């Protein structure tokens, strides 16, 4: 009886640790997309702005990048169950 409880507690702890690792990963990935979107398109906007002498293209690029990132985050992580995907075949975590 107690060994059954131990196994269940161990499984619960394992699932909690897995949830923590996944949460950390997804949290930083989402944050990464937001910042990277602004950096990438802000950079492209700045380069084009420098070429055509329109300084406004830098902030516009950043906003466009932010919008693209938000759209992608919603597309990838906004679906129900997107975060708590089922384990793959052979996954022994």
């Amino acid at each position, binding site marked *: 009886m107690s060994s059954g409880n131990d196994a269940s507690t161990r499984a619960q702890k*394992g699932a909690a640790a897995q949830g923590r690792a996944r949460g950390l990963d997804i949290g930083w990935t989402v944050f990464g997309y937001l910042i990277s979107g602004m950096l990438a398109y802000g950079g492209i906007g700045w380069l084009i702005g420098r070429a055509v002498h329109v300084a406004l293209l830098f902030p516009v690029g950043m906003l466009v990048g932010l919008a693209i990132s938000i759209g992608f985050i919603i597309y990838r992580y906004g679906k129900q169950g997107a975060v708590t995907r089922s384990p793959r075949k052979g996954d022994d975590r």
Partner: protein
Amino acid sequence: MIGDVRVVAEPMAPGGGCHLFSGCGFPSPGLQSFDFKPLFSIGSFPFTKPMLIALLCAAAVIVFFWAAFAKPKLVPRGVQNIGEIAILAVRDQILRPSLGRKGDTYLPFLVSLFFFIWFMNLMELIPLFQFPAMSRIGFVWPLVAMVYLLYLYLGFKHQGFPGYIKNMIPWDVPFFVLPILIPIELIRFFVFQPFTLGVRLFGNMFAGHLLLSIFILATWYLASFSVGLLYAAGSAAMVFFVFGLELLIDLLQAFIFTTLTAVYIASSLESAH
């Protein structure tokens, strides 16, 4: 400039007599708190306190695990008990959740990384050392470089160069969106991820050390036979609070760095991120 500030800061040491209403202002700790005079020099190479701390931490990790597992017994006793608990904690809380059983090969690397970072962080709370070496960013970048080079090496080894590049692209989006997302993915992968991995650890240690220094110095500065004594008591309470908080943050930052390393290794071993 730094030398000038030091001259002002020196009277703040116990016995200095610089208190509230004594005519000298509060020289709050700043960047000068992170600069150290060389302990000695080897040729033109100055050897400073953070370097000594880093060496001692590396030695502490080696000695601890050597003592625990040099002559392992089937029934663990003494240091081996603590060593096993330490290794199992990293395995069950950091490695297995991200990598599964197949990742056990990387356990020695993750254990070393976790305990080295944790010991380096804990040094801010140990008297005489009282400085987190990770608050000097030069100690963080080599760790980030080590993790990221391993991440890339494993990715290329397990997926091949074309496969690895292919797997970086988010194929789950409509085809026409792909060219829009590629610059974002490239920046995230090559700039954001390594940058945040390092800066997160550095920033937390830097801020923690600064916060502790401010409250410790403020307690000393405010301690006088005036209303300042009341504020000094408040500041002293904050020292204990921040001390407790830093105990937690030291562990948490080591945990986050090692967990993200495990997550990166896992994504390199898998066929898709």
